[in-house]
């Protein structure tokens, strides 16, 4: 009887231990000497994953130990994570970062350098800094279906002004309070839509809403590669509401050594908007992995030479 009970406990314990062993399995050995560990995060859309992978792989190649936290969330989740030190780097967009850190004060302009400089005045107080902005640009863009564009003869956002009241607009949860979204559309273009649906920020719900006709105008990103395939066309920002949303790495000062800055700035110096569109296409249309796409890009541009 005692032996049976003993065997029972032993088995139960074995199950637990085995589960642990299986689960904690291989955590992968790190390189012998590492210059330190950095955590790179990305927003929850594919382009951000690609950019994060670009930064991360370049740093890894340079000898750093890199952790990734991709698809982490919106800026409201990612920025606090940086401030609290849970992540070290994220690929930001200059004007949007500025308007986030200055609480929507409206200081961003079309000049990426000036915008980034202003951004750094805010980041300095938070022990962070933005490096050199890239010429690669990705800002909010507003799209309509080709059918809608044809029907109302739409080419620019100004064309929307007279008919906005007949249309339904879809965007993400942060749109109503985000300067380059509803407030901007309203103040710069005088757009007042029939209805605004809260969907997601350039995500699957917005695309689905276009498809089933729930919305006629929607928020997308200017470097999206799948718009044409989805039958969408972007309306031109003729009054220049969107400011300099150039790609810029936002890093914690603690890890922003000259070496790190050099690696990151090197990537951004050569990154173009066309590159963004191409890489987005590979991820969104060809379903390639963000890390593979980033890897291929780095190889092509001889970063690993």
């Amino acid at each position, binding site marked *: 009887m*005692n032996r*049976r*009970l003993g*065997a*029972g*406990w032993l*088995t*139960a314990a074995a*199950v*637990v231990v085995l*589960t*642990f062993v*299986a*689960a*904690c*399995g291989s955590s992968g050995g790190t390189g012998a000497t590492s210059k330190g560990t950095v955590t790179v*995060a990305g927003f*929850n*859309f*594919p382009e951000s994953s690609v950019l994060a992978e670009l930064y991360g792989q370049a740093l890894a190649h340079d000898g750093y130990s890199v952790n990734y*936290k*991709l*698809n*982490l*969330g919106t800026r409201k*989740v990612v920025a*606090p*994570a940086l401030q*609290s030190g*849970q*992540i070290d780097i994220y690929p930001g967009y200059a004007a949007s970062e500025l308007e986030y850190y200055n609480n929507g004060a409206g200081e961003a302009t079309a000049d990426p350098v000036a915008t980034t400089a202003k951004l750094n005045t805010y980041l300095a107080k938070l022990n962070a800094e933005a490096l050199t902005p890239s010429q690669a640009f990705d800002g909010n863009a507003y799209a309509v279906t080709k059918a809608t564009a044809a029907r109302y003869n739409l080419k620019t956002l100004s064309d929307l002004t007279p008919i906005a009241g007949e249309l339904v607009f879809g965007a993400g949860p942060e749109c109503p309070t985000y300067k380059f979204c509803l407030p901007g559309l309203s103040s710069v273009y005088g757009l007042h839509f029939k209805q605004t649906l809260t969907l997601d920020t350039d*995500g*699957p719900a917005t*695309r*689905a809403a276009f*498809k089933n006709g729930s919305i006629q105008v929607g928020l997308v990103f200017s470097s999206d590669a*799948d718009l044409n*395939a*989805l*039958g969408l066309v972007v309306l031109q920002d003729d009054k220049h509401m969107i400011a300099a949303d150039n790609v810029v790495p936002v890093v914690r000062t603690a890890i922003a050594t000259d070496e790190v800055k050099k690696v990151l700035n090197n990537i951004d110096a050569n990154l173009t908007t066309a590159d963004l569109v191409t890489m987005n296409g590979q*991820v*969104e*249309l060809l*379903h390639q*992995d963000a890390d593979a796409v980033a890897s291929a890009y780095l190889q092509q541009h001889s970063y690993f030479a």
Partner: protein
Amino acid sequence: MQARLFLDIVDPWINWTWLSTHIPYVLGAVQEHLTLTAIALVGGLVIALPLGIAARRWTNLHLRPAALTVFGAFYTIPSIALFALLIPYTGLGILTAEIPLVGYNVLILVRNVLVGLDSVPPEVLDAADGMGYRPFARLIRVELPLALPAIFAGLRVATVSTIGIVTITAVIGLGGLGQLILRGLIESFHTPLVVATALCIVLAFVADLAIALAQRLAVPWARNP
């Protein structure tokens, strides 16, 4: 089977080529999923077992109604909410994911620990006392073994439940197979989505079977329908 031309982009439900080139990626997700699940189960048990035992022993503390009420209330709160609320305090890591998961498991397991211990016939307890067992020894050698069937039943329910909820930790950057589901959603890419969902079901089955087997080994004198 081709996907409906919902987005006018043809995308098979399972792209076998993609799958064959992404085995490590998928297995890595499975491993992360299992790790999160295992931690939640062990954590739940580590809390539920002493809690259940204490609730029965020190009835004047009214631990039983208190525990059931507190953890019961916790149980009704959706996991996404708990993750979101914990982020400012516990950050974006495993702790944030595990606190709710462990909390849910405590409820399931403590109920079963209590039912199991309650079900020990009083005659057996008397006999044990008569044989000279002191309270602690009686607990370890008589009561708990007899309570094992109920505890194992609870473990099975907790395991299958946890495997499902772990997918939701993807919204805070974790989640193992949940990450594949999220990728399927964000990129409108069917294969990781379908593969991950199928694997969750398989994992749940295998885990359930493993625990049932362990139960059969550990508690050969009892069969649970």
